């Protein structure tokens, strides 16, 4: 059976199984399912999917939910956490909440589970005000909404500064021959509140997994959110990650995406600026090889005046890897005095690697500063000679130059332990044993 048919036919069983009695959510699910049913999975003929085909990924016989529960010991998965800092943790194993690996709270703020928030009456107003409000109605996000059940629910109340970062980690154990996961996160940051979040999806075996993750983020007036996505999954793991962010006046939201692994990764990142005097930051480092594929699809929608957006994506592609950058900046007629910057720089390490870069600017206001730049290049021969003449071997010299190329994206990572981890992941990815930081 095709995956689409399998999903549609298992919907009733799914709703029965989770026995959630919330008519509001049930209604959204049913509507979302019919949208998915009519649209189907995106295909290459869809403009937004021109350079990324899901065909190969979708041919696996995915289980729509895990049949058995698999216990994981912390010591076995510790390397996937940023373990040298105190943090809140929301951890899932094969889509199910793993309480013994997690550290949640309801103490003035809520750092807990989506299933809990969907079920408990006291969260009903937040769910009704925020859930599925900014997520697009496209097929994949609709599919996620139809099967919404589990994920992270984070609500930071007014004036609260969350002092430790929150780590959201989804493990898949390979207990199923092939597993489809559809986590759904809702993050609401009230006025003047602040939070840092690290998100990771990690497969623990070579069994295929496909994660179709949707996150909705709301930053109210003067809210500050720093969000980090660490994507370094195994060769048979694919991820479609859709993140929708609604920002209020004077808020600051940044999203850093580090894509170093996985079979196919598609990042949809949409910012909607609903208010004045705010800024949005979108940064990414992609370093891939083999036949890996990473697609960044971004949108920044400037709706009101006096706002800024900064996009900086760096990509390093070797072997037969494929990169896609599709960055759209939309400036409404009312959004005067907008400053929007976008840059996408790429290094192709050999002849077989490919990058498709497509910046799009749609500007309807007349008093704005918008710039975009895209470069595709190779490592500088003179720089290579210089480093090698100082005794740094070719491989290490290449790695150093690649690191330097990506460095300005890393500079803005605000959690030192995370930055340190990313540095190590980069060194490992480039196959060298040199410290980049001193």
């Amino acid at each position, binding site marked *: 059976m095709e995956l689409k048919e399998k999903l549609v036919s298992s919907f009733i069983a799914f709703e029965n199984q989770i026995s959630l009695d919330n008519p509001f959510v049930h209604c959204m699910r049913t509507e979302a399912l019919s949208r998915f049913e009519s649209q189907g999975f995106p295909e290459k003929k869809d403009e937004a999917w021109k350079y990324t085909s899901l065909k190969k990924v979708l041919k696996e016989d995915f289980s729509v939910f895990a049949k058995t529960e698999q216990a994981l010991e912390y010591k076995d998965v510790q390397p996937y956490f940023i373990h040298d800092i105190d943090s809140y943790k929301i951890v899932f194993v094969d889509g199910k909440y793993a309480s013994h690996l997690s550290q949640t709270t309801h103490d003035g703020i809520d750092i807990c589970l989506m299933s809990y928030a969907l079920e408990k009456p006291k969260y009903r107003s937040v769910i009704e005000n925020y859930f599925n409000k900014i997520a697009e109605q496209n097929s994949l996000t609709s599919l996620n909404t139809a099967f919404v059940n589990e994920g992270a629910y984070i609500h930071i109340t007014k004036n609260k500064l969350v002092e430790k970062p929150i780590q959201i980690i989804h493990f898949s154990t390979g207990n199923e021959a092939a597993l489809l996961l559809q986590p759904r996160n809702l993050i609401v940051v009230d006025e003047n509140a602040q939070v840092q979040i690290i998100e990771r999806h990690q497969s623990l075996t070579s069994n295929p997994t496909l994660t179709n993750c949707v996150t909705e983020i709301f930053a109210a007036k003067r809210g500050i959110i720093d969000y980090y996505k660490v994507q370094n999954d195994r060769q048979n793991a694919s991820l479609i990650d859709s993140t929708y962010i609604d920002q209020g006046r004077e808020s600051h939201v940044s999203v850093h995406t580090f894509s170093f692994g996985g079979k196919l990764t598609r990042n949809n990142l949409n910012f909607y600026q609903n208010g004045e005097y705010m800024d949005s930051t979108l940064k990414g480092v992609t370093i891939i090889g083999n036949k890996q594929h990473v697609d960044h699809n971004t949108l920044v929608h400037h709706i009101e005046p006096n706002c800024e957006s900064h996009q900086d994506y760096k990509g390093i592609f070797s072997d037969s890897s494929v990169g896609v950058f599709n960055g759209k900046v939309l400036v409404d007629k009312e959004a005067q005095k907008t400053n929007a910057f976008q840059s996408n720089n790429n290094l192709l390490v050999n002849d077989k690697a490919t990058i498709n870069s497509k910046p799009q600017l749609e500007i309807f206001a007349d008093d704005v500063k918008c710039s975009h730049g895209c470069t595709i290049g190779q490592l*500088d*021969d*003179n*720089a290579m*000679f*210089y*480093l*090698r*003449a*100082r*005794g*740094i*071997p*070719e491989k*290490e*010299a290449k790695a*150093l*130059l690649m*690191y*330097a*190329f*990506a*460095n*300005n994206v890393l500079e803005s990572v605000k959690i030192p332990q995370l930055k340190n981890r990313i540095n190590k992941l980069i060194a490992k990815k480039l196959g060298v044993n*040199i*410290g*980049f*930081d*001193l």
Partner: protein
Amino acid sequence: MLKITNLHAHIDEKSILKGINLDIKAGEVHAIMGPNGSGKSTLASVIAGKEEYEVDKGEIKLEGQNIDELSVEERAHKGIFLSFQYPVEIPGVTVTNFMKTSLNETRKAKGLDDMPAKEMLKLIREKSELLEIDRKFLSRSLNQGFSGGEKKRNEIFQMAMLEPKLAILDETDSGLDIDALRIVANGVNKLKSKDNAVVIITHYQRLLDYIVPDFVHVLYNGKIVKSGSKELAFELEEKGYDWIKQEAGN
């Protein structure tokens, strides 16, 4: 130390070195002078192993060993150091991190462990003082936004850190004001010993007032057309290169 015999090299089908012979012994300072385009920088690059140049004939021996087949980094590990005429700017790599990587990779090649961080910092402090380099400078990106003088001082700082057997200073004096020139020359003089050798490639005699050469060679049209003592440098300063060109033409 370094013995070059009948060296011929070309790049992009253009023959540049046309039979160089040079014998440099430990403890000596050699100056190679010559008009623009005579092949001075090419000679430096070929000794350092730059792959764009192809050696057609002849050989280069370092301490009796033929280095033709060695890569750029292997030559560096064996103690060849090239101070660049145009040091490359590398944003995102700090001077300190670069130096640390360079020194530790050189140690690794010799079968040594990484230098302990504390020792490394001490060495960096010591050598940067020798070149009167400000501490803040060390955490800046390599050569990025450095003035001409800062770049050259940074090159000699690297030389001080790596303690090469053979240092080739390619136009190190160009772009230096008199103070920077003195600092650089002073650094080189302090690093000079009976166990190493220095080759100074220069267009002018100016640097040679500070670093006194034992031998001066004139390179013209890919060949060494004249060798002599330091007095030859004065003669060139006074008379220019035209008489050399004429002599070579005859």
